């Protein structure tokens, strides 16, 4: 099987987000860039399928600035065979639609039998790109998948999709399809640094606006349908407080606070 994994480089989850003075985006200095955690499951799943199906290949496809190469290499060190970096200044500022458009353009000629990705990127948290790519490529989708079985003939995939209340929808999709990984799909393997260095020798293709034959107006910020107006920081979380009173009274007060202040109950 020819498997493609859509992967995004994102700031580590612990990153303290700061907003630029003009509210146009976040400050990227001092950020530790990592592989989107949900994409790790996708890479791992691709590798497990590859290990089961002889002759399979896994390609990591990532759209982002040059630094994304490092993260693609992590995927290669985990065991993927090749990488595609989609990088062009014109791609900056894309919304999900403009991103998906470029991805679809890259993916179409590659004719992957299976596309895997994470259910969402933990930076913009949009969770739109996989479905949009699926639609643009005219292939089915299976989102938020925590168990995946590929049929022996490689033509179908049985996907366990997590929905509310702990229920699961069992979907059978014809391949090629896009399958988006949820936490718990597997336990991703570790890529050690020497392995990442070694992965330098694996093939890495770079594509840009001109190699894809796209126009600058249809991609990036210009091609975006959803235009960002401004970024802001949420209100600071209130400092912790001790609920006073006798245990029973405090308990009553606590439930009230959880409902009315915290809105978590």
């Amino acid at each position: 099987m020819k498997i493609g994994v859509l992967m995004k480089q994102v700031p580590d989850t612990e990153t303290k987000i700061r907003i630029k003075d003009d509210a146009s985006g976040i400050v990227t200095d001092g950020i530790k860039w990592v592989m989107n955690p949900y994409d790790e499951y996708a890479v791992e799943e691709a590798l497990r399928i590859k290990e089961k199906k002889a002759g399979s290949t896994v390609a990591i496809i990532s759209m982002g600035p040059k630094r994304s190469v490092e993260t693609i290499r992590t995927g290669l060190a985990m065991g993927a065979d090749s990488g595609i970096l989609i990088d062009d200044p014109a791609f900056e500022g894309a919304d999900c639609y403009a991103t998906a458009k470029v991805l679809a353009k890259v993916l179409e000629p590659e004719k992957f039998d299976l596309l895997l990705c994470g259910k969402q990127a933990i930076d913009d948290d949009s969770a739109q790109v996989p479905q949009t790519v699926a639609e643009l490529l005219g292939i089915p989708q299976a989102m938020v998948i925590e168990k995946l079985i590929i049929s022996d003939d490689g033509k179908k995939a049985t996907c366990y999709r997590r929905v509310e209340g702990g229920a699961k929808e069992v979907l059978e999709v014809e391949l090629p399809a896009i399958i988006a990984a949820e936490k718990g799909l597997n336990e991703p393997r570790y890529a050690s640094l020497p392995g990442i260095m070694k992965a330098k020798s694996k093939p890495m293709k770079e594509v840009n606006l001109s190699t894809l034959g796209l126009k600058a107006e249809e991609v990036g910020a210009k091609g975006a349908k959803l235009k960002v107006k401004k970024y802001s920081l949420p209100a600071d979380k209130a400092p912790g407080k001790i609920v006073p009173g006798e245990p029973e009274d405090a308990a009553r007060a606590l439930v009230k606070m959880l409902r009315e202040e915290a809105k978590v109950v």
Partner: protein
Amino acid sequence: MANEVWIYAEHKDGKLKKSALELLSGARSLANDLGTQLVAVTLGCGLEAMVKELGAYGADKVIIAENEALKSYLAVAYAQTLAGLAKQHQPAILLGPASAQGKDLFPRVAAKLGTGMASDCIKIQLDGQKLLSPVRPMYAGKALVEANIPEARPQMATVRPNVLAVAPKQEGKQAQIEKVAVEAPKDLKTILKEIVKGAKETVDLTEATIIISGGRAMKAADNFKILWDLAEVFGSGTTVGASRAAVDSGFAPADMQVGQTGKVVNPTLYIACGISGAIQHLAGMRTSKFIVAINKDADAPIFQKADYGIVGDLFKVVPVLTEEVKKLKAQD
């Protein structure tokens, strides 16, 4: 009529989801400001009875797209139908819930319509140009972004459930109901084989939205029952965890352990009962969105991480919590 405000009314097991009412309540003012109709759209078959109350929550019109093939939800099928309706009616705004279904469906509909969409919004509003200008969280809520869709139509967004308040029901108000027999969607390449119901007790710690954890101060394995009782009243998505000391003491099985050497959890609400909050435990739960600590020792490190704390005997506190939450849930 073009330029309407549409909301997608999700239903499950023959019942409307609460999100439909929330969306109607939130979108009513948008429709008013735009001087247009508020329309609820729903897909499936045999839905007339179900949609009757939508008028009372603000819908001017309800469109039921009916076909036997839409009986159960499938992304490709629903996207074809919903996009088809939108193309035909040209609404200005199309809102949906950021539920499992809405998150799955809406991006595909937006792609079909070649329009933009804002995911998981926590605020929906119009800006000065009367464009939908929703606010949505990014970076797991560490930043907010306001955006709009200046050109493409409809302006699409999914809204996080439980964010919009449901307006009071206006008894007697009826919506015009328009039943459309739509074509069966085709070329699906997807089959829904079955829906496996989630059993309450199988909620994994890493998936739970509410976790109640017990520490060494639980004193005995049997006492964990009071935590399970509390979990029970919170309802689905709630489970019980334990600290390493509780597990090492044999009060709870190892798979209930939360912490660096157990499970790393990320629930909306974490209630730590009799847990001091050693680093090895904090490492596993510190990213919980809301932390409550109940401990006798006022100096326990857990209080420094907690949003709310009660200094007191957990055996006195927890049963009252259970009672109070039960009351609250009964009112809902």
